[in-house]
């Protein structure tokens, strides 16, 4: 009795305690409930479904969901509890209630989303209609006082899991080795220009010669001075004169490099590639 009196006093104190203006009024109520019933007393929020129409329709379709077998839901629950430890206490509770004479068959509500009129509940054998479409959600609600999804609801989520229904056919791969040509399209487009200023038309020989020349040039492009030893004094003939008296047009590479460096155009990598005398 002393404990009870002390609890009552603490509840009164909590009720009388001034709260800050921004406090959530629910918090104080929760505190009072837990003072009275214990710190682990769960308190469920009541919520209202935003769009209950589909669930209402599904709940009303009970007979076709269960295939006119009202016991299908409870037998399914007992069997599922064998493999779902989370479901086991609920299954045991219902067994005990039923052993005591309570009719639990009517307390179980099944529903399925999305609702398909006339469809079987996805947890039961599929029958001739075949498996439900992917993403179908089956719900089992234990509600002794009836379940009305249109009204405010509160409850405990006991368990949830996903089931995979395998396909009847599997796509297998048949692999074979075949020595296919390894040639690949060129990475460049040749825009050929006829060598004569006013050609009447292209002929095949000129075209082939152009392509051949391009191929030759492409291979030459990969050459370096070592491979053309003997001609390396002449080739490549990229000679540029420099005469500071300007008797001939002059190109000063040193000046170009300095200019590029001053403007920040010459990156370190590119600068390393510029070798030779100034």
């Amino acid at each position: 009795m002393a404990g009870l009196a002390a609890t009552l006093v603490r509840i009164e104190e909590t009720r009388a305690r001034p709260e800050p203006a921004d406090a959530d009024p629910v918090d104080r109520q929760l505190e009072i409930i837990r003072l009275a019933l214990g710190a682990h007393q769960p308190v469920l929020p009541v919520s209202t479904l935003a769009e209950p129409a589909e669930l209402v329709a599904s709940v009303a379709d009970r007979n076709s969901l269960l295939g006119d077998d009202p016991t299908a839901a409870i037998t399914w629950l007992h069997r599922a509890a064998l493999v779902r430890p989370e479901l086991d206490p609920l299954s045991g509770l219902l067994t005990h209630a039923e052993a005591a004479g309570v009719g639990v068959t009517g307390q179980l509500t099944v529903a399925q989303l999305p609702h398909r009129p006339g469809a079987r509940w996805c947890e039961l054998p599929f029958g001739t209609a075949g498996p439900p479409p992917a993403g179908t959600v089956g719900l089992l609600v234990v509600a002794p006082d009836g379940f009305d999804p249109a009204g405010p609801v509160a409850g405990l989520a006991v368990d949830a899991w996903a089931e995979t229904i395998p396909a009847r056919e599997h796509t297998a791969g048949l692999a074979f080795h075949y020595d296919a040509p390894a040639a690949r399209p060129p990475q460049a487009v040749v825009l050929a220009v006829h060598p004569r200023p006013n050609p009447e038309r292209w002929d095949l020989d000129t075209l082939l010669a152009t392509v051949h020349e391009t191929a030759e040039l492409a291979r030459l492009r990969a050459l370096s001075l070592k491979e053309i030893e003997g001609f390396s004094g002449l080739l490549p003939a990229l000679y540029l004169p420099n005469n500071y008296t300007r008797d001939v047009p002059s190109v000063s590479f040193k000046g170009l490099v300095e200019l590029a460096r001053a403007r920040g155009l010459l990156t370190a990598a590119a600068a390393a590639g510029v070798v030779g005398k100034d």
Partner: protein
Amino acid sequence: MPDRLWNLPPAELDLELVKLPSVVTWSRLEPLALSPDLTPGLQTLLGDPLWLLARQWQFDELRGEDGGTPVSAVVEVEHAPLSRLHPGAAGPGAATTAVDLVDEDILLEPLVEAEAVARAARVRAEAGLQLLRLLDAAGLGRLRPRVVERWKFPPRHHDERDPQGSARAVVLAGRVPDAGLVEADLAPLDGGDGPLTGMPAGLTVPGGGAAKARAVLGAWLRWYRTQLVAPPGRASWNPHRQEYAFAVQAELPSGRAVLRADEYTTGRLDWADFDAVDGVELGATPAGRTGGTIRKVLVPMPARFPGMPADRLWAFEDGNVYLGGVEAGPTDLTRMALVEFSLTFGVDWFVLPVDLPAGSVVRVGSLAVYDTFGEKVDVGPTRQPGGWSMFGLTPSTDVSRRADLFIVPPVVPHVLEGDPLEEVALFRDEMANLVWGVERIVQGASGEPVNRGRLATPVSLRQRLPDDLGDAAIVYRLMTPVPDHWIPFVAVPMAGGRPGAIELERRPLLHFRDDGTTDLPIRAVSSCAARPRPTWRRTASGWQRRRFPVTARS
């Protein structure tokens, strides 16, 4: 100097320039295509169009080959559903012990792994409640007291060796019929698909309605018997080897195919568990379970896999898988073979998608490939007699028809599995040269799982012997105490086995108790053949639930 010069006004500049000697120097631009540094090459820098073509030429991308690209393939695949199952290792006389597989939706794992179990009390109680529900629904609620009284659960007291089961028994006793008793009572009256052939002796329906009661009881009996998957005839479990063994047969158009799975332990069947064998017959194929042939014209697509090297120079490769980073020691032959094959020989493979029905044995009859020039090439199986092979159901020396078989086992990818009802761990004790079998979970009298450690009688740390004075200052202990549920197994030569083969023989162990007594449990000696490989192994049984398109079963 020149700078000062160029800053002069033009008139003065000309005067100054004529005073200077005119020397023309020549600079030559020398493009360098090669460099001792590997970095630019590895970066595969782009350049002018000729450079792009030159690099392609260097990498053989411009070489013309005398062949075409495969553009079409005609494949003929024969397939047949699994039609016979032999639980257990299949020998010469397997045809008589094999069973038909006639259900279109067979699942192999439950058929192989199912055990004929005494149903747990909870399952019997839940089924008993279902009988009451059916009676209520049929308007026979008045029969309830008689049904409960006739097939009642025996009363039980609290039993600490089965706490959950005995607690439940208190609730069930006198309130719920025991489905096991009901089934035993109704079995002689089984009327097939119809009502019972008669009412059980002594059970009368007050106020009439016996016909209805017989119908309800008959329906309940059928329901009860299909609740669990029953093993087909005999069990596939081989306790001597701690693994499942079974064989299946399919009737292909070109002849029968028998596949054996002799060492199935994982709980997840796949094609690699099977071996195609010769000389074993599982009997005649039931009607409607013969196979057919699929003939399809398909477009081959190049096989691509993550981490595959690109087959041309300027292409981005998948960066998620880096096969070059796979590390392999000198003995990791499989790993090295995988990397080598992927990096070197991965190109020039083509894939054809073939849809196969689950639960069938398949054989590729023929494959004809047509290239861009219309040339036909017949592609045979990749096989090197006497060499080695992969992805086959036969040894590499086998070049017969069986070597081309493949199985798509009827299994499901996702299984709901409950907590184990029984669990035994076997592990090696190298120091004691023993194998220990540790019973972790056993089933109590009601069928509920019980932690075996709770049931063990406490063992004493002191090992008192007869004539023990008990006043010694120093105690030499012969052995550390071993709990009751640790059972020693000793390796012994296998009777009739090949030389070197061993089996494990169960041995008793002396237990010292706190009260000074000892006991030496003499139990029936059981044995199991040792597999040398695993040093630890767990054997467990429990409930499973699988779903298949048409029917759902537990």
